[in-house]
């Protein structure tokens, strides 16, 4: 009983490990929509972006900037207006698995996680041009 309680207490700080939040509050428009309502758009380029984060102790303690595929897409947009056809996902690819399971000993010591964003960077077309 005491052993089980100790284990529960030991893992309590680790709840939320390897957490990833995709959110954005800036001035770019990021959408899964191919064309935002009431707006014409002109394709600038397609992009696929990837980011990786390192964590200590079973993913409990993240290092560096938090993973965020929406922010990643906004960064890809640069000076342009919006990202359309946005797809996001997160998880572990082969490299993350190697890092987490071999040198990090089954994620006990450390681990890494990834986020991906894919979409089209676009500019709004002025109303008179889009007509």
């Amino acid at each position, binding site marked *: 009983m005491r052993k089980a309680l100790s284990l529960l207490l030991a893992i309590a700080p680790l709840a939320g490990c390897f957490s990833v939040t995709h959110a*954005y509050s800036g001035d770019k428009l990021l959408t899964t929509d191919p064309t935002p309502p009431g707006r014409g758009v002109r394709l600038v380029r397609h992009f696929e972006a990837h980011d990786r984060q390192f964590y200590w102790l079973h993913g409990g303690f993240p290092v560096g900037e938090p993973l965020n595929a929406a922010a990643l897409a906004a960064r890809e947009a640069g000076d342009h207006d919006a990202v359309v056809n946005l797809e996001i*996902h997160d998880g572990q690819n082969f490299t993350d698995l190697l890092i987490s399971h071999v040198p990090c000993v089954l994620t006990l010591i450390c681990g890494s996680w990834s986020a991906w964003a894919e979409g089209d960077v676009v500019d709004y077309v002025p109303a008179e041009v889009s007509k």
Partner: protein
Amino acid sequence: MSPILSRIAVLGLCALAAGGCFSVSHKLPPHAYFGKLPKAPTETSTDFERSAMKNWLAAGLIPWSRFSSDDLLAESGSGVLRYENLQVRTEFNWIDTVAWIVPGQFYGYYVWAPRHITVTGEEIRSGTALP
């Protein structure tokens, strides 16, 4: 091959086999937005938060929960014009951590490991129709 090299090779093969672990593709409907659009006077918004547990077999390699983020949004029913201010979070919350770590390090992690997916945002619906 020396025993150390063969062990490293086996670990590498295991990691390769497990590549893609715990990966979550956030399939969102085409009218999903990170950030906000200008709201029409007839539109109303409602905050929402939905969460569900996604389960995997074989150390996160094989998902046996088939739902995706769009299934969580589909719970809104019909009449939603778009989803705004979206925030998509994937994490091992305390339930997942207990399921993953306590039995996991002894027998369970390779059999069953869950993660929680939470989607929050605003549902935009059309209010009173204009005459």
